[in-house]
């Protein structure tokens, strides 16, 4: 290949629009999310209130709350080891987002400037893409999808539990509070995001050239494709969904705000 018109320098472009806004917003939001999530995972605590459980900590395998499946933190765990229920499970939804086809494209731009935006010059000359290590591991996205699907079950269970409040009579009663709405919306948004996954789209039907003779798969493929069309939106809204859920429960648990019961 004979050389093209010379390579543009970093940030060089003839674009006149505000091309840097989108990657900048993505940079700020994604970075804030990572910082917040990491802080919460290590800090632990204030992640449950009554029948509400923060999605950062669900499923809670071992922990201090009544939501824990296997009781309290094992006593043999060395005290110097930082532990919170989130540390065990966060890698899975985190990995799902990290290897997500939408997020990849977005943070390659915002965090790695490769490219900073379409038709804008780049800082580095060398490039390996997802063709070799390390980014080749992105190809394992579907395994994170499997995990995410399982997590959806737990989070749905949490949403269900958020509708049942312990009454003064010692029995659980159906009810709806702000937390119920937030946790339910969170599951809906996460489901929209997970069910729009490109890998799922492939696994339900994309791998076949002919779907007309597989009515069930075709239906599933169409549903996933429908969600997939707005995968980016689902990705953003569900991100806000989990953060909102956690912040709400955190503040509630600290007594800074209080829940409102509608029913």
């Amino acid at each position, binding site marked *: *290949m*004979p*050389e*093209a*018109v010379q*390579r*543009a320098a970093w940030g060089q*472009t*003839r*674009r*006149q*629009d505000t091309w840097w806004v989108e990657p900048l917003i993505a940079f700020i939001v994604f970075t804030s999310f990572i910082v917040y999530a990491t802080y919460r995972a290590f800090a632990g605590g204030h992640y449950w209130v009554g029948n509400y459980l923060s999605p950062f900590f669900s499923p809670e395998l071992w922990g201090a709350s009544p939501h824990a499946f296997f009781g309290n933190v094992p006593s043999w765990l060395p005290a110097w080891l930082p532990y919170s229920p989130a540390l065990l499970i966060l890698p899975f939804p985190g990995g799902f987002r990290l290897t997500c*086809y939408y997020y*990849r*494209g977005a943070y*390659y*731009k915002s965090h790695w400037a*490769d*490219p900073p935006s*379409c*038709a804008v*010059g*780049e800082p580095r*000359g*060398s*490039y*390996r*893409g*997802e*063709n*070799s290590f390390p*980014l*080749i591991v992105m*190809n*394992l*996205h*579907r395994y994170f999808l499997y995990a995410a699907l399982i997590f959806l079950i737990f989070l749905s269970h949490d949403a269900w539990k958020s509708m049942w409040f312990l009454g003064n009579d010692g029995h659980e009663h159906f009810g709806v509070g702000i937390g119920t709405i937030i946790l339910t919306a969170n599951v809906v948004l996460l489901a929209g995001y997970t069910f729009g996954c*490109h*890998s799922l*789209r*492939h*696994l339900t039907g*994309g*791998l076949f*050239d*002919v*779907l*007309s003779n597989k009515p069930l798969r*075709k239906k599933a493929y169409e549903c996933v494709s429908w969600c*997939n*069309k707005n*995968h980016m939106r689902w990705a953003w809204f569900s991100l806000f969904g989990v953060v909102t859920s956690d912040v709400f429960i955190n503040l509630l648990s600290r007594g800074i705000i209080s829940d409102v019961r509608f029913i």
Partner: protein
Amino acid sequence: MSKATFSVWRGDKSGGKLVDYTTEVSEGMVVLDAVHQIQAESANDMAVRWNCKAGKCGSCSAEINGMPKLMCMTRLNTLDLSKPVTIEPMRAFPSIRDLVTDVSWNFRVKKTIKKFKPRKPDAPDGTWRVQNEDIERPQEMRKCIECFLCQDVCHVLRDHQKHEEFIGPRFLVYTAALEMNPIDDDDRVDDLKFKHNIGFCNITKCCTKVCPEHITITDNAIIPLKERVVDRHYDPLKKLLKVFGPK
């Protein structure tokens, strides 16, 4: 009637610069009209490649205010005419002259992709029976007019010059149309990984953004192909199944 200024890149492979031309603009004009007007009025020898002028042939690709676009489909009323409009040739390809670039690389690449190979016909008269719903995917890909704007904007080609290793979005779309065609029988998955290096694509979706035919290149062509490559080469479970599973 009003006037507008266009900064057009004039030059050839040895170099060039933007030259300002001012011309009358009127309602409904597209960038290509302005270029033609300049050509007829003050730059008879200004090179520009064009053909149908209706967005169907994909000849008049250029970079207008820095964005890859078809000149014939970019209406002037979508641009800010208060400052000069820059019109440059595609950057991902070598210059021939002025707005014309040497896109022959694309034609060479296409030849390296295994051609269409039909399966056995379904009917004795040598024809196939196919449902409309099963050809929607290849039909979307076959809308491509080969303007090569996606190749131009793809940073793997544009900035990293991987022309020798990577086939670019246009030919991933082309491969997708073949791979998803219910009549085609050949297999291009190994080629995608080893020869055409689909892994270079980091799905930043610029190709989709500039496609004048509105083909959802990334979501409907490249990612489905990446997933087919994963099936074959990266999925450990599938690999295990292949070794131990029923033959």
